[in-house]
């Protein structure tokens, strides 16, 4: 409302007194007595005296000094409008899905301030049930990979034009595709398995639209690690080209022929949890697991009975089991040393018809037909494996891919769109894919960077990272999951589905497309609320119509029976996938390189593995246990010997690693290595004599052996002829291993028993002679005491509010390492690079110790008398039993580390935690020396900023040194400075958050409400966390189990970590 009111300063203003008007122009209406002040006599005569001078001097020096200091540049962008549900300090969780053609898992993504920082399994999934593995939880680092393509690019006269707009690539591609169509040319979409219904529709729309224009368009599916053998076998026998749904949880007897179903075989993420559920002796029974294989796989190392067979013998073994189980006569001879184990397996299988399971890792159709016939004869279809609920996560068709390469080489392909696939890297050299690609006129690559394939194409249309993408997935019939972005796209990328649609003339918003599609086909609802609910849970399981697949073995079986045999060679090569790198998709992720291989404990390399006796033969040294110990040892300053592996006319120089448990006559080399781009990590110190000074492109991490894969009816990872190995004398190769000693030396580190003993000793296991005998120590009066009853120190108060503890079930632990990487990303553990790992300086807060039994086969240290016994006990047995033991800080109640720290930087909390105060640590390392478990890690350098020529690795492998990479850091955990000790904190930040949560809810901390990174990442629930003072917490039941024991109880450290005895079903 307007007003006419006026205000005056005084009556003079109201009256507009001329004097006032005149004065109001001046700033000071009255005359200030400046002159009077300045003309004062004292001021004039005084001048600047000494005191004033010093004041001025002090002030100006201080001011100049302060001005000279560089003020820290703080980059922070305040919210103008706070986004919904985004509170600094409070994490948000999004249900999403990981699928890269190799691993499928429904996941939960933790974001902080809009950044995804942690990946966990999603327990709502009925397929993967909350499991994830090391590859999946480490994949978050890939999002912040600053070497990803930052936008579309096209090749102009042989060089790449980057920084161009999307229309600059889409328009010419469309033009070229149309011209191909106009001349009835061939267009091929080459992708890895697509299990997304919406993506399939996009592909189909593309095919339809260009077919309508006259082009011949087809979609070829190609998996880097192919399951064609099993798919083709199922197609012939059952008429379903899909994987069966395996139900390991229903299997009482599991026989695996080289299938690493806990590590990398098919949907291992789903199988591990199911398998572990059959390995609980508390149930009174355990599945019996037989593994027959050539290399020692993660699965084989967990088997109750294991037989090592060359690949050719392995095929015979499958046929042998088939003949015995079905009564069908097939002539297959198996080596005598394994025959007894096979017979025992056959006996157990036959006794458990309908609740047994036979699987094979072979990619040979004939073997898979035999395996199907075995399962069929055992009535396992419908119970432990089921094709009525087919699994779609592998659909690659090797025959189609082989045909495609022939067409390409014949110049019959005019345009190719390559999606989520890197065939130049993964296809066998004999298929000449690279040569064929050069003959294709239009090559569009939908990868994330100019990798092996991308660099040879004409256009790069970079795809979103999966954490920036929308998608839907249908891993198995009736099971659906969704993928949603957890962060806006970081670079100028676009989802391939949108680009492909645009090429087909339809501009879509893929998010809306997925939503519409999902509502229509899965939810059968048009309600936004239903969609939101599905998105929140991430998973939908629909009832599946009961159909009955009928087996028709017929001719497939007779072919299989006559063609299952492999020609046997002196050396047979098996290419395998490692738990860390899998198919090599994530070969630029340093976390996965630094994750030690669960079996060999090697980091950063692939290598030739051989049986020790074979290795000694190659070295030309007499095969004695002393010589094995001396010649096969690989450690800090003991580099590996280099061998030349020749396959046909290709040869590789690779380091040699003797692998206990490997079948004699077998050579193993891991796939997934030698990726382009990894040469940026390496240097002379990493590669030793194999460093190529002339062409740095050859200095990749490991060597790519995909190219020697065998092409028969499928692309096979077994090469059984023309394989030879010879020693390259005079060359050595430094190897970085986290464990240089492999046996327990008669010490009771991993306590073991058998199932029969476990059952017969119920109630007496802790007594004298029991498998878990309670250790007693005599005091000075000769009275036996438990180790925790004899004490020099005063007790810590343990009956306060909480006392946190862990229980680790060594029977459930399969050694996969998912906990190690989860801990790594939760706690901002620095990656340090190969050279530092080689010097035993890896920073992992938790590790998984892997022990082999020794040639001495000692039961305990009483069996070791004298020097030679101890030396023999250092040498691993040829066919060892294997034990895994996750070790993190044991949070001892009487911690040896706490008493020795001169500055009290490591202390005991009232909640039972052994705390490390980084700020107070001066770095004497006394605590680490005095730790019996050796779990403390010292910051030898400033890993997050040291970048000097003498130590160039940290800048390459430590995400914290990259502006984008450091976005992956967990803001709840500080990045440690150089010179301080660090170690497992039992995820104290999660404990604090959980306590706060409970407090807000006004309740006690509920069991399971707090999970450490390792316990939440464990796919087999081997690690459980809880409050030892709260009887409601499950850990209190677990610690009372008869299997429970403390590691090194005799030292008297009184840990808060319980281990559960490993029980073998033998």
């Amino acid at each position, binding site marked *: 409302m307007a007003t006419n009111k006026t205000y005056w300063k005084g009556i003079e203003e109201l009256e507009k007194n001329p004097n006032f008007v005149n004065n109001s122009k001046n700033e000071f209406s009255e005359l200030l007595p400046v002159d009077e002040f300045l003309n004062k006599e004292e001021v004039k005569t005084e001048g600047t005296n000494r005191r004033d001078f010093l004041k001025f001097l002090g002030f100006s020096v201080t001011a100049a000094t302060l001005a000279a200091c560089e003020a820290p540049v703080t980059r922070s962008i305040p919210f103008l409008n706070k986004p919904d549900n985004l509170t600094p300090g409070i994490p948000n969780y999004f249900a999403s899905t990981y699928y890269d053609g190799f691993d499928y898992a429904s996941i939960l993504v933790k974001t902080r301030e809009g950044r995804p920082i942690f990946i966990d399994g999603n327990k709502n999934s009925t397929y993967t049930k909350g499991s994830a593995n090391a590859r999946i939880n480490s994949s978050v680092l890939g999002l912040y990979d600053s070497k990803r393509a930052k936008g579309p690019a096209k090749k102009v006269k042989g060089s790449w034009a980057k920084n161009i707009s999307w229309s600059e690539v889409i328009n010419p591609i469309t033009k070229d595709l149309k011209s191909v169509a106009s001349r009835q040319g061939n267009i091929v979409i080459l992708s890895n398995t697509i299990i997304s219904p919406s993506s399939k529709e996009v592909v189909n729309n593309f095919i339809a639209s260009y077919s309508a224009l006259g082009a011949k368009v087809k979609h070829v599916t190609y998996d880097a690690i192919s399951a064609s053998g099993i798919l083709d076998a199922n197609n012939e026998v059952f008429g379903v080209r899909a994987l069966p749904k395996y139900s390991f949880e229903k299997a009482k007897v599991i026989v695996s022929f080289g299938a690493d179903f806990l590590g990398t075989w098919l949907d291992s993420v789903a199988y591990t949890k199911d398998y572990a559920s059959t390995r609980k002796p508390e149930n009174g029974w355990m599945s019996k697991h037989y593994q027959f294989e050539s290399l020692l796989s993660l699965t084989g190392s967990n088997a109750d009975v294991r037989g090592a067979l060359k690949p050719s013998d392995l095929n015979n073994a499958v046929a042998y089991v088939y003949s015995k189980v079905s009564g069908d006569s097939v002539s297959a001879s198996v080596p005598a040393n394994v025959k007894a184990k096979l017979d025992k397996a056959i006996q157990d299988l036959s006794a458990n018809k309908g609740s047994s399971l036979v699987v094979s890792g072979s990619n040979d159709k004939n073997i898979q037909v035999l395996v199907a016939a075995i399962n069929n004869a055992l009535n396992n279809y419908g119970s432990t494996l089921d094709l009525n609920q087919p699994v779609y996560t592998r659909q690659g068709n090797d025959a189609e891919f082989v045909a495609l390469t022939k067409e390409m080489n014949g110049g019959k392909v005019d345009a190719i769109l390559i999606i989520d696939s890197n065939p130049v890297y993964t296809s066998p050299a004999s298929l000449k894919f690279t040569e064929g690609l050069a003959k294709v006129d239009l090559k569009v690559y939908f990868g994330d960077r100019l990798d092996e394939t991308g660099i040879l194409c004409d256009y790069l249309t970079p795809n979103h990272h999966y954490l920036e993408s929308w998608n839907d997935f249908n891993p198995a019939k009736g099971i659906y999951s969704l993928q949603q972005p957890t962060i806006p796209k970081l670079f100028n990328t676009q989802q391939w589905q949108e680009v492909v649609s645009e090429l087909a003339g339809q501009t879509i918003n893929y998010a809306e497309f997925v939503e519409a599609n999902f509502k229509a086909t899965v939810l059968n609802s048009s309600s936004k609320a239903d969609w939101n609910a599905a998105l929140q849970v991430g998973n939908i399981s629909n009832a599946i119509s009961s159909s009955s697949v009928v087996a028709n073995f017929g001719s497939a079986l007779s072919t299989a029976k006559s063609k299952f045999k492999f020609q046997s060679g002196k050396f047979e090569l098996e290419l395998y996938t490692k738990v860390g790198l899998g198919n090599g998709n994530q070969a630029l992720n340093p976390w996965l390189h630094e994750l030690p291989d669960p079996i060999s404990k090697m980091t950063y390399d692939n290598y030739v593995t051989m049986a020790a006796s074979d290795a000694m033969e190659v070295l030309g040294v007499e095969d004695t246990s002393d010589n094995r110990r001396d010649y096969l040892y690989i450690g800090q300053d003991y580099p590996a010997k280099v061998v030349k592996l020749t396959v046909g006319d290709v040869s590789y120089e690779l380091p040699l690693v003797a692998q206990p448990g490997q079948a004699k006559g077998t050579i193993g080399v891991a796939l997934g290595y030698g990726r382009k781009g990894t040469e940026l990590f390496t240097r002379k110190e990493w590669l030793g004599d194999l460093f190529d000074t002339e062409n740095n492109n050859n200095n990749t991490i490991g060597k790519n052996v995909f190219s020697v894969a065998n092409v028969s009816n499928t692309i096979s990872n077994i090469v059984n002829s023309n394989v030879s190995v010879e020693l390259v004398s005079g060359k050595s190769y430094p190897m970085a291993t986290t464990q240089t000693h492999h046996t327990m030396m008669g010490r009771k580190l991993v306590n073991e028993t058998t199932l029969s003993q476990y059952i017969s000793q119920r109630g007496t296991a802790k007594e004298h002679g029991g498998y878990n005998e309670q250790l007693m120590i005599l005091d000075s009066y000769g009275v036996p005491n438990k180790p925790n009853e004899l004490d020099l120190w005063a007790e810590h108060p343990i009956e306060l509010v909480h006392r946190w503890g862990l229980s680790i079930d060594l029977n459930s632990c399969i050694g996969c390492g998912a906990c190690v990487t989860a801990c790594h990303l939760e706690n901002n553990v620095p990656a340090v690079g190969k050279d530092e790992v080689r010097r035993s300086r890896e920073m992992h807060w938790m590790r998984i110790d892997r022990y082999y039994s020794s040639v001495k086969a000692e039961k305990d240290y009483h069996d070791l008398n004298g020097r030679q016994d101890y030396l023999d006990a250092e040498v691993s047995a040829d066919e060892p039993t294997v034990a895994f033991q996750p070790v993190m800080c044991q949070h001892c109640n009487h911690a040896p580390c706490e*008493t020795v720290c001169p500055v*009290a930087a490591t202390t005991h909390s009232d909640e039972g935690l052994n705390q490390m105060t980084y700020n107070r640590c001066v770095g004497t390392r006394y605590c680490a020396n005095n730790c019996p478990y050796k779990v403390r890690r*010292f910051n030898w*350098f400033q890993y997050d900023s040291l970048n000097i020529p*003498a130590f160039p690795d940290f800048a390459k492998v430590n995400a914290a040194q990259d502006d984008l990479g450091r976005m992956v850091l967990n803001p709840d955990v500080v990045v440690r400075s150089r010179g301080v000790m660090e170690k497992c904190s039992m995820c104290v930040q999660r404990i604090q958050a959980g306590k706060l949560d409970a407090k807000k809810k006004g309740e006690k901390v509920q069991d399971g409400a707090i999970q450490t990174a390792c316990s939440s990442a464990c796919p087999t629930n081997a690690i459980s966390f809880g409050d030892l003072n709260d009887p409601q917490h499950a850990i209190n039941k677990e610690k009372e189990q008869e299997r429970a024991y403390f590691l090194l109880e005799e030292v008297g450290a009184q840990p808060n970590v319980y281990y559960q005895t490993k029980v073998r079903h033998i």
Partner: protein
Amino acid sequence: MHIVEAEIREPLILGHKSYNDITEDVCRPIESRANSLWYMLFGLASILALWGLGNILYTVGVGIGVWGLNKTVGWAWDITNFVWWVGIGHAGTLISAVLLLFRQRWRMAINRSAEAMTIFAVMMAALFPGIHMGRIWQAYWVLPLPNQFGSLWPNFNSPLLWDVFAISTYFSVSLGFWYVGLIPDFATVRDRATTKLYKVIFGTLSFGWSGSAKHWNRFEEISLVLAGLATPLVFSVHSIVSMDFATSVIPGWHTTIFPPYFVAGAIFSGFAMVLTLMIIMRKVFHFEDYLTMKHIEYMNIVVMLTGSMVGVAYLTELFISWYSGVEYEGYAFMNRATGPYSWAYWSMMTCNVISPQLFWFKKFRRNLVLTFILSIVVNIGMWFERFVIIVTSLHRDFLTSSWTMFHPTYVDIGVYFGTIGIFFVLFLLYARSFPVLALNELKTILRATGEHGVKGSKAHHDHKEGH
């Protein structure tokens, strides 16, 4: 002190010296130009010292990672060197304090330099706990200083903290004792000084010493008091250093025998180092008349005795590790003797236990060349002893999965040899500017145990009336 020694005793000062001769001989290095041998040694030591300083700066600048340590072996050369230097420091105090209390007159020719050696060796030793810290700039946190972090004190349970107190006490008492002994000698140098500079320097250093009876009285008293104070320190310092290991849980460290065994080892290595230095000094400054073969022989006997004590300790450890029946302990010693570091163990055994046994023979005890070589061998052996204790115990402890090896880097080696260089730089400077023999004390025994006294008194008897 006008006691005449028995004739069968060898004189401790040869060559019919007069009081003035002693003054002249001892003051000569201070007042004249150094000879070329001194310059050679000094040049060599300076190069080593500079190289060592460079390596220390590199370590502090970049991180402890420039050494060869790892997750399992958290101490190696650093603490080996620390214990080695502390051990060497022991002989000085033993000689000046314990032998003073026992009225051993032969100590008078060697105590000044032995104490100087102690001080420099303790300085070198004190360097290592400092630079081995990850964050040396926070080193003052180990001191119980009032602070603003709340009432935050060091951890009084930690043997490392005990070390701080033990070493600093030891260093200050040794320094005080040494300085008190120097006062009358500084006064002698002052009185002889011809330049103004020397007069001012030595005048200040000698605190206005006038040589009055009262001064001498106080001097004797304070010497005795300080000797009394220093004597328990001889035993406490190395006992406490040994507790760094003995109070831990690591097999091979967790041993009750450590305190006496470490003290014996320390005296052993200290005497060996005194021998090394004395033989060089005898040669460079022509002190054959003062550092007689008898002195060398006495010290060799101490070396032989303590070497044998150390040998008994080694054997006891071995026996107990077997007799205890503790599997980890048993393996730790099996591994020492036969494992990958057995070469270090057998070097230690040879140098420390076997080689001193040569001194059972008088011929060897009085052989200068052999003594010089063995004195170095013993210190090599004692370095290996600490290396064996620290590294071979750590590298294979409880969990076999963590077993690993330690390989030193050039920085490890550079720092170690650097401290030897710094030590010799300090010692050589001392030799040129301090009275290296205890003038005033030597003069007190000249009449009694000098050749003049022992042999001379006999001659006096022949010619004149006896005293």
